[in-house]
């Protein structure tokens, strides 16, 4: 065990994966010997050479096209997109190609070795184009896996699973926590199951569902609610695709109440999927409407970030409203 922040945990996972197989490649804009703008790939070029960890030209659609091709060749391709906000030029390669590669070929070919790493999320004074949480844009895409860790321990184990998972995985890293989140992390290899939600805290009165950096807000809100005597169960979805509806439904059948919170704007976010599914699975158990606590339906602003941000107070208010419905 060692104390690591989230970036170090990511770096450790990449290091272990690259040591484990010569067929693992890591690349992206500025990710070469410089180590990436957040330094997630630091030291990899020195250790594995400039053909294993390298810079790409500045073209996201090319990064993913290249990565799809490399993965289809049987390699493990780990592509970094510098910010989640800049993943959209690669949308076609991800949604029409990565996700459909195996199906359309009848399993003659696949890009299972592909992992896309990208930092996402707000709270860092980044404005429109350095703050987006675009996970829901991808969640409508059969064939893709989406994974979002909430802390260093999860990040390392999940990233190692993602890299060696035989399906393309979009791995979204909460950049607000890159340095802010620290914890004990095994130095050696370990992996955590994809597609499985994590019950972060058990409780009996109300279920909160969150993922990535937003789990922190759920925890803070639950702490505050505890002062009012409200006992919240917190579920970190961990994987958005495929997602673990069973674990959530089980919890809601117990608590009868659900608050889902996400950083992204409300409309057509992943919280809507969770709410839609749970109202179906738990109809007779629900004691109050499922609440979605989300960003406003605007682009991510700079100067009112504090107000726009989906903080623990907003989650707390939703908990109270649900309890007193």
């Amino acid at each position, binding site marked *: 065990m060692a104390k690591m922040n989230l970036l170090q945990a990511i770096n450790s996972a990449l290091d272990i994966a690259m040591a484990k197989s010569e067929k693992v490649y890591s690349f992206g804009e500025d990710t070469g010997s410089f180590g990436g703008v957040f330094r997630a790939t630091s030291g990899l070029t020195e250790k594995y050479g400039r053909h294993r960890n390298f810079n790409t030209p500045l073209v996201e659609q090319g990064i993913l096209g290249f990565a799809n091709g490399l993965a289809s060749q049987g390699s493990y391709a780990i592509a970094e997109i510098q910010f989640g906000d800049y993943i959209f030029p690669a949308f076609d390669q991800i949604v029409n190609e990565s996700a459909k590669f195996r199906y*359309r070929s009848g399993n003659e*070919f696949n890009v299972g070795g592909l992992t896309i790493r990208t930092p996402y999320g707000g709270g860092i004074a980044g404005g429109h184009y350095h703050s987006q949480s675009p996970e829901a844009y991808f969640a409508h895409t059969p064939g893709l896996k989406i994974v979002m860790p909430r802390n260093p321990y999860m990040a390392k184990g999940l990233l190692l699973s993602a890299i060696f998972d035989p399906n393309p995985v979009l791995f979204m890293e909460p950049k607000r926590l890159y340095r802010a989140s620290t914890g004990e992390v095994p130095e050696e290899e370990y992996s955590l199951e994809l597609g499985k939600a994590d019950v972060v805290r058990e409780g009996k009165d109300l279920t909160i569902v969150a993922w990535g950096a937003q789990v922190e807000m759920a925890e803070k809100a639950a702490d505050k609610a505890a002062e009012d005597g409200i006992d919240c169960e917190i579920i970190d979805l961990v994987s958005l695709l495929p997602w673990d509806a069973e674990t959530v439904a089980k919890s809601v059948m117990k608590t009868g109440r659900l608050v889902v919170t996400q950083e992204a704007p409300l409309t057509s976010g992943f919280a809507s999927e969770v709410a839609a599914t749970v109202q179906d699975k738990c109809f007779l158990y629900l004691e109050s409407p499922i609440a979605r606590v989300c960003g406003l339906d605007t682009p991510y602003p700079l100067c009112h970030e504090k107000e726009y941000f989906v903080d623990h107070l907003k989650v707390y208010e939703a908990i109270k409203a649900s309890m007193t419905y």
Partner: protein
Amino acid sequence: MAKDKQHQLEIVTEPKFIDGSALKIPMLQILKEDGTVQKGAQVPELDKELALKMFDTMQFIRILDERMIAAQRQGRISFYLSSLGEEAASIGSAAALDDGDMIMGQYREQGALAYRGFTVEQFMDQLFSNERDLGKGRQMPVHYGSAELNFMTIASPLATQIPQATGYAFGQKMDKSGTCTICYFGEGAASEGDFHAALNMAAVYKVPAIFFCRNNGYAISTPSQGEQYAGDGIAPRGVAYGMKTIRVDGNDILAVYQATQMARKLAVEDNEPVLIEGMSYRMAGHSTSDDPTGYRTRDEEDAWRAKDPLARFQTYLIKKKWLTEKDAEEIFAEKKAAVLAALKKAEKVPAPHIDELINDVYDTPPQQLKEQLEQLKAHIRKYPEAYPKTASRIDGGEK
């Protein structure tokens, strides 16, 4: 002449604008339209067996294309897309490769696939989306693919395979496999952003890839010159990326073969990616959904008919005494019989089992998808008359 130090550029003091005329790229031709060899041309080394295999494949593809266009008209298949007039480009280039080289096509390269050994039955199984189709009937006709033959499954989104070829070739280079990737695409697809990404990255990484642009004059109804691009076609772009580039007569199978053979050497031995632009013409409509009379003249088509790659090569082979008219007719008859027989057989093979609907989305179907399939099957059992093709086989079948 003074040189700028950092950039190593020549310095000039006269403000002169350069334009497309600064770089006109000529076209390599070995066989003239009449099938005779261009004066001064060096015919590539090519033994009789290989030459006849190329000819054979051209014949086969010509027949397959013509027959399947007819089959579509008869309503036997839903869609077809031919390579009429462009057989030399895909077959001549495929013949210059090793079997271990990866082929990534756009959709008009059935010639390359046939050359690799895809059987007439395999073609038909795909065209009829039957349960023997390697692609499990999931894509429209002509979206062939075969891992065994190193022929990447065709997909409809244009140009996406071009950066994929760069990535694939990178892996081949790292594996020291001694193989390369050839990537085909149309001059229309070369307008996509993915083309730009692919060629630039290939030049930067020096991967063993051959980018083969089939410039057939049209992208559906859009003529290339002036509406798809304003410059001298696609080839100068290779030069701009700092990539080895050559333009060939795409209807001259010997020129295509020679250029690709040399390109393969550059790619595999020197890790030099190469751009080949093959000039040709799409003789038929874009696909069976298209009628070209709306956007081009009969005269134009006729002018190109005179450049037919198959007739040209046949004349050459006959002159060379590797073939007689009679041989050619026999090959034609034999291929035609094979195509017709396979067609009849394939259309009787049933569709893949309904269980295949959820396979291959992921390596194994997630729980939710299994439930969705079960619901669907329950629904079909309830309304068997509404889903007649499936209902009868729903609880038997191979899975």
